[in-house]
């Protein structure tokens, strides 16, 4: 058996259809090689020239911003009822419990009749999100039974101090300056 010579025509795997014949270009060098190199150079020049004609595709970041998708998970927002102006958050701490990064701190307090803060029995006296810990998973949004917290579209949150990244309830409730453009209907679908 060991004497048997290798015959590619009778080799068993050739019929299996798994074998892909390798396509090789012509050998480099020689006059043909020089001719092909010249042709390929011209092709390359054409490619770069068409890049020049098409114009730049980059986005001038600080002035222009990449539009985000509607479900983009950016900085959190706390919400109020539009009619009464009461906070939706009732201080149940479910968001804090759901948070895998443990970055939400809620201290609840009883609502006093006459000066209600939220619609429920209790309200969040302290509501802090440490954005330097947050992983923007959106679990808080899902956990919230009253849709009091949602993820916004803002992603420019860099700051100089870590303490500045702890967002308080007032900062999260404040109407954020909408700095991030939203993708329009259907935009960006084709490049997926």
């Amino acid at each position: 058996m060991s004497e048997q010579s290798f015959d590619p025509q009778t080799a068993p795997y050739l019929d299996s259809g798994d074998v892909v014949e390798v396509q090789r270009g012509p050998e480099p060098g020689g006059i043909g090689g020089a001719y092909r190199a010249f042709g390929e150079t011209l092709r390359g020049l054409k490619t770069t020239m068409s890049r020049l004609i098409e114009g730049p595709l980059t986005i001038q970041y600080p002035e222009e911003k990449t539009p985000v998708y509607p479900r983009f998970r950016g900085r959190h927002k706390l919400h109020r009822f539009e009619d009464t102006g009461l906070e939706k958050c009732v201080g149940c701490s479910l968001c804090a419990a759901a948070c895998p990064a443990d970055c939400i701190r809620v201290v609840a307090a009883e609502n006093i009749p006459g000066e209600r803060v939220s619609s429920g029995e209790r309200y969040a006296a302290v509501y802090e999100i440490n954005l330097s810990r947050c992983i923007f998973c959106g679990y808080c949004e899902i956990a919230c039974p009253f849709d009091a917290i949602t993820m916004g579209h803002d992603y420019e949150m860099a700051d100089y101090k870590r303490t500045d990244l702890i967002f308080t309830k007032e900062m999260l409730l404040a109407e954020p300056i909408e700095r991030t453009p939203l993708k329009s209907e259907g935009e960006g679908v084709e490049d997926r």
Partner: protein
Amino acid sequence: MTHLVFADTQFAESIWIMIAKSIVIFAVIFGILPVLTVVERKLIGRFQHRYGPNRVGPFGLLQPLADVGKLISKESFRPENAISTLFILGPLLPVLSGVLALAIIPWGDTKNGVGFYGIDVPIGILYFFAVGSIAFYGLLLGGWSSGSKYSLLGAMRSAAQLISYEVSMGLALLGVIMMSGSLSLVDVVRAQGDVWYIGPQIVGFLIFMLAGFAELVQGFMTEYGGMRFGSFLLVEYMEILVVSGIAAAMFLGGWMGPGPGWLDPIWMLIKMLALVFVFIWVRATLPRLRYDQLMTLGWKVLLPLATLNVLVTAVLVVVT
């Protein structure tokens, strides 16, 4: 076509005109150089779907000012075991060679006893090669005196490459010289009144440009910093300008162009800048050649081609 035409050796100008001419040429070229650096970076950006520098000043035009400011404010560092005088001389020699080579680029014909060029030397092209080769000393000295083996290796590579391409460059220009019968660049341009030599000498043109494209990895610059590094960079752009100028004069009819006579320098400049654009285009397209491939290209492709071109041209010149 039996005798050689030499530049008019009896031609003389008053010294004031010479000084004024040199100042104007110097000012124009050194005005173009910084813009060229921005334009190159911007063009390379556009070739890659980018914008290139556009933050400093309008359209990023003040970018070279910022770059030079940065380079000047940097420490003029010198390695401990570098040879100080040669280390300082390293970047100076290429600058000198570049400025000297500017002198023979013809910007226009002689008018009212004033030649629109720095000097019209009877040995024109030989002057270009002689002066241009001084730059190699700068590279070699800079690389060697840096006291670093990597600089030395880089310098060896650059010098070997430049010398081997210089041969093909010279042979490529030889065809033009045989057709025009003169070494003087002004006479070569005058001889192109009917046909620009890019037509009959297309092979020579391609070889000349290809040899000019040969890009260096600039390994000899390894130990340089600050403005010394800056002057090496400056020289690189100046050499692109000079090579484009020589190519424009030898192959593209120099100052020839429609319009009144005073437009001649403008035409020359346009042709030069068009060639500079081609240089940048090719630079944006092709990757650098590996060193051995580069030598193969120089000695096994360009040199035989250039020799063949010279032979064919010689036969044709004699026959016609």
